[in-house]
């Protein structure tokens, strides 16, 4: 389903959390779809099952995943996600990047074009869905 970079400095459980989040946000994993079991993912990726368990727990805390006892882990519906928090974080990141780009000569018009392009892209993803 996905590959991990074992050489990366990023902890494996963080990589797992980020990858699964990405799949959920891009709707490759659909709401209420079951995530692979800890056992299966462990042998597929050759990753310690405790690490995978921990990643699933973290995803549950962040609202991306819900678990049913004895059945496994499922993708949460997008509406249920705490997207406000995420948006706030993203806005801060964007602000930092824009500040740097302005220093290097980015204009308001450039920014508008960028926004437009990104908007098109996002819509494109939805159409593929």
């Amino acid at each position: 389903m996905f590959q991990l970079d074992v050489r990366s400095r990023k902890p494996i459980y963080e990589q797992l959390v980020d990858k699964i989040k990405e799949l959920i946000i891009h709707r490759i994993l659909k709401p209420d779809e079951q995530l692979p079991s800890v056992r299966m993912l462990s042998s597929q990726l050759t990753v310690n099952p405790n690490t995978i368990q921990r990643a699933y727990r973290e995803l549950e805390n962040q609202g991306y995943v819900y678990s049913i006892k004895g059945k496994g882990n499922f993708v949460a519906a997008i509406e249920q996600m705490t997207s406000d928090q995420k948006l706030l974080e993203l806005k801060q990141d964007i602000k930092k990047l824009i500040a740097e780009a302005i220093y290097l000569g980015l204009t308001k018009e450039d920014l508008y074009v960028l926004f437009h392009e990104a908007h098109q892209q996002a819509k494109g993803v939805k159409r593929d869905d």
Partner: protein
Amino acid sequence: MIRVQSISKKYDKHLAVNDLTLQVKKGSIYGLLGSNGAGKTSLLKMIAGINRPDKGTIEINDLPVFENVAVKEKVVFIPDLLYFFPQATVAQMAAHYKEYYPGWSKDRFDQLKSAFNIDVNRKVHRLSKGMKRQVAFWLALSAMPDILILDEPIDGLDPVMRQKVKNLLFQDVAERELTVIISSHNLREIEDLCDHVGIMHNGKILIEKEIDDIKSDTHKVQLALADPTHEEHLLNQLNILHHEKRGSVSLLIVRGSEEQINKIIYSFNVLLYDLLPLTLEEIFIYEMEDVGYEIEKILL
């Protein structure tokens, strides 16, 4: 659950293990790292119930382990120097193991045959070093232990086999909550295997933590300040393990969460700022440096 309570062990005058306390939860893979001669093997032999500590207690599932058959039936120890009976074939060794370990599973042994692909009628002492290791793993996993103690286990296995053995261990951990203790100084090997690590030096455990916590708890920071005179003030606010200066850029190893460090550093006017998680190898080296076990730059 393995509970080691303030144990010490002396060999003649040499204090190999010094008032050491350690806990390993059921279903966890615990990596024991350490400098050469730190006392890793001494500790493992005591946990396996082979040697008796001079002081302190070791309990596995709330029972003392030394010479206790009821406990040792469920513990398999693979030492760094393997021992097989002279002239014994793989099948004969399996028969011996079956006598000692009541949990022995013939089905498992047959299943694993396809994973290891070694003829059971071959004599073990004629096999290569790596193949002997494979036989040791094969026998150990077929004995279905609750606890598996491995001393420098990955030595001599080729990359494919390594991956296979890892996968087998993970399966047993996931399916029947096998507890594993592994000693090694090959940090890369441990990094993607364990969930907990303990770093040992001079008979003591220096740090013991969940591996992902260690990684998110120590960071490498590259930093240049607009006003260098503020640097001392900044450094005083951080918990610094290591500090190096290259021109106007400082390289720091800092303990603390990313958030904390960001907050402190952004309160200054920085020209350059980079924060990276550390590899286990770097953590090991810097922690060791902290206790005076340094890599000296030796030129001959």
